[in-house]
């Protein structure tokens, strides 16, 4: 199903050989997730990020909210993405640092979503700490 299977989660080499800021961002997210084992599980769904640069999809990252893992590449065998988000590298960095929020990017057309949008809403917890009601 996945043609462009990239390297496993631990390595940082990208199959496309393009330097992506998103990689650093995902490392940060992973760090955050390590400190809180349930964090990724709270997302609850399998979300795939297709990071683009110059208009082409360069690399994908999968956030497996069911298993609680985040890794580079398309979903592993047996896992289907429930939401796929396509976003540019720079915009993703803004998104993950909390500088931009997803609905705003979406409205500007910088973020495309396929699948159940409401599940994607939960991603905000991965990017920054939410204030508590």
């Amino acid at each position, binding site marked *: 199903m996945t043609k462009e299977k990239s390297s496993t989660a631990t390595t940082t080499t990208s199959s496309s050989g393009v330097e992506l800021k998103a990689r650093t961002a995902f490392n940060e997210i992973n760090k*955050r997730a390590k*400190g*809180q084992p349930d964090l990724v599980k*709270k*997302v*609850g*769904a399998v979300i795939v990020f297709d990071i683009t640069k110059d208009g082409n999809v360069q690399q994908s990252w999968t956030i497996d909210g069911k298993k609680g893992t985040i890794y580079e590449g398309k979903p592993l065998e047996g896992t*289907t*993405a*429930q*939401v*796929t988000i396509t976003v540019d590298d720079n915009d993703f960095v803004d998104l993950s640092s*909390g500088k931009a*929020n*997803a*609905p*705003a990017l*979406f*409205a*500007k*057309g*910088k973020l*495309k*979503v*396929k*699948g*159940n*949008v*409401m*599940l*994607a*809403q*939960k991603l*905000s*917890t991965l990017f*920054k*700490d*939410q*204030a*508590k*009601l």
Partner: protein
Amino acid sequence: MAALKPLLDAECGTTNPLIKLSQFYTRDNTLVTQDGLIKPATNNFTNANLTGGSNATIDELVNEYHRPIAAPNTFHLEGLLTGLRLADDTIDNTNKHEYEWTTQFLDSLTNDFSSFSTNTKTNNNFSSSMIHPLSNQQIQTSQNIINDFNIQQQQSQWMPWNEQTYIPSTSTFPLNSNSTFLDQQSSTVDTGFDNDTVKAAQNIFALLQETQFAADSEFKDFVENVAGGIGEQSTVDAKKQEATGETKDVTVDKWINEFSNDLSNESEWQHDWAADAANLSSLDDQIPRSQSWLRHLMDNDDSYSEYKFSKTNVFLDHSNPFEEGLKRLQAHDIVNAVLLFEAAVQKQPNHVEAWLYLGITQSENEQDGPAICALKKCVELDPKNLQAYITLASCYANEMLTNEALDSLRKWLANNDKYSHLLSNRRSQTTTNEPRLIDELVFEELQELFLQAVSLSTNPNDIDSDLQVCLGVLFHLPGDYDKAAECFNTAVLAKPDDALLWNKLGAALANGGQSEKAVDAYYHALTLSPGFVRARYNLGISCFNLSAYKQAVEHFLTALKQQSDGIGPQGTHVQMSENIWRTLAIAIGHLQRPDLEQSVGKKDLSKLLHEFKIE
């Protein structure tokens, strides 16, 4: 896309059927007053409709969407919309989000429509939304047209996200029947508008032929159908009639459940939707999934079933821990209050109030996990405890457990004597006992109900702050932070001395990116209640977001210190929040002090306090 421009321009004098279409849109049929009359729909969803001016903030909320009120002279959507709806001759169960659509639509109409044509992103949204009409809408096709144009609207943050999640009713299912609406609607309609709808569709279809959307066959089909006359719709209706069978609502509910599960399980949403009721049969296959959803819900429940008491609690032998706990709470000594309430429930496991206060206090103590456990115990003992439900809703919202939060909000409404009748009006047919499996549909429905509840209040000074809080939490769930902040702001106006409300306001502002205003709100909360751990934690987060890392660290450390001070003289302590430690770790990371990172890893609080000179 420029081809569609003529259809959207607000030119005076042109008989643009789409404009007429939009007229109906502005009529918000959810605004039913106590005597069941639909409030006279003014052009827009204005204050008059809402309540006797319940609160300025809701007005603001509304006005926010109605800034370009001058423009709509040519847009009188309400008439057409009502006509369309009634033309179907079935009950129209208006959706809450309908008004948002209208407002969005009005906004969009006054925007620069060249953006509409050049905005490439809309391609995807356009097609998908075509296939995803609003739920509860009888007038599927025409609504679709409106919906699409709404999508183009740039300003709304909330709408595009939610719009794609709406459960499309592929046929015109009356998901809820509200007799009041029915009564009203039948009297005010002029069915002559049908033709306009058809003409509009024909126009759009013609335009579509010229545009790239010609590629999207499903949308074209829709429009073709409408253009071809209402004939198609009646076929759909007929199918629907068959499909719903004997007990409309049971099947409808099943259908809702199936669809929602479908939604959550399918990745390619677009493929699932075909605009005819024929799909219904295939949905029966989806039933098993609803079971797994239920199981998932149950699993979640398990993690909150047993309250874990502090290992050592110096107050266990206290003669009257509950009373003492209340006193400490008054004195803003939250941490000790927690211990006292724990002692109280251990002494008297049936003490409803003790469980309630334990839950509330733990939540203030930035410990939502134990809070949820305690509150669940409370409602077990007292299923009508409104305060418990409202606190539960906030806690679940914080834990991102949307379904549970919605469930709690619904229970609040159901058990609230002031508003429970709204629920029974709406849902008299369906069972409210089954666990809520879906979030999208329930969300819209709840929103509608709560807004109805707000509109019940005729006295501008009579603000039900609890209701506002519920509404705020509801908006917070899908990330509509601005609206949530409006609601909390209203609540705070009614109760300016309630630190919890100020914190909620701050949180909604912060999550919406308004960190400075959030900080202000948190300071209010902390002034009222200096021991309010959660508010301090939130304040730290806002400082962090404003890149004031050192200050953030200081706040976190103060919060941790307060928690660790919840110690009896012997040094036993209330568990400190993992949340706070975690965020502290990240904040320290930004300070470039690897030496401190070690201390954080070891949870060496005293060293850190010393380092930052917090006594």
